[in-house]
């Protein structure tokens, strides 16, 4: 059986950033998933959610939970990433001062998402948007 959740994200709406991650955390707790796994999932998802809020116009988060893994797909409409290799480098950032005031924008998000995931895919098209696929296995 697979559980499926979907959340909308508004670009620029920092007051709501983290809402989806918080809901996912609640669900995983109810499912008695190992807290260490939950932390990896929600840290990765929260970083990705903040990225959409910080850079895109809008986005959708899809979360699929089955007995083996948690799969998260974030699809946004936004400026896209012109050089993914560079964006994956620790410390590289195009964040605005507003994003930095929120405590982010240090160029650590994408590397940290990758670190916390077992499978990580990123696709982006300039002027269209970015798609992120994150998988964390429940049994480590």
């Amino acid at each position: 059986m697979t559980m499926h959740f979907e959340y909308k994200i508004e670009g620029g709406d920092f007051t709501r950033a983290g809402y989806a991650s918080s809901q996912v955390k609640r669900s995983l707790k109810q499912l008695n998933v190992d807290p260490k796994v939950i932390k990896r999932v929600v840290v990765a998802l929260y970083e990705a959610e903040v990225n959409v809020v910080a850079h895109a116009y809008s986005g959708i988060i899809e979360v699929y939970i089955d007995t083996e893994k948690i799969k998260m797909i974030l699809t946004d409409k936004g400026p896209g990433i012109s050089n993914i290799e560079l964006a994956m480098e620790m410390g590289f950032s195009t964040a605005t001062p507003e994003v930095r005031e929120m405590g982010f924008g240090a160029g650590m998000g994408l590397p940290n998402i990758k670190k916390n995931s077992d499978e990580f895919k990123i696709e982006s098209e300039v002027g269209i948007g970015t798609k992120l696929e994150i998988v964390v296995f429940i049994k480590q």
Partner: protein
Amino acid sequence: MDNNSTSIKHSGNMKLKDVAEMLNGRVVSGIEHIDKEVEFAFSSDLMSDVLTVQKDNVILLTGLANVQALRTAEMSDISCIVFVRNKKVSVDMLKLGKESGIVLIECPSSMFRASGVLFSNGLKPVY
């Protein structure tokens, strides 16, 4: 001199109520969790750094008083945030604090002083 030869005894666990008392802090949310014990502290205004912390039983000292500090703590399983430099907890932050059960403490000290006090009383650094 290696880390073990320091004169400070890092015996580990400290109750959140002791943290509040040592820092002359005001507990504005989560008073019911004040007897919880913690082992580590991390001081940062950059939430991206906080999200890389792997340890458990950590408290966060920060001057970043916004909703994202609470969200970051929530995702990182951080049970208590100390807001240093006299930063105030807003109504939105209080609401989120109540929801997530995170202990929120307002503290008049600088981050350096607050960190120093907790360190010298045995709270451990995460690295």
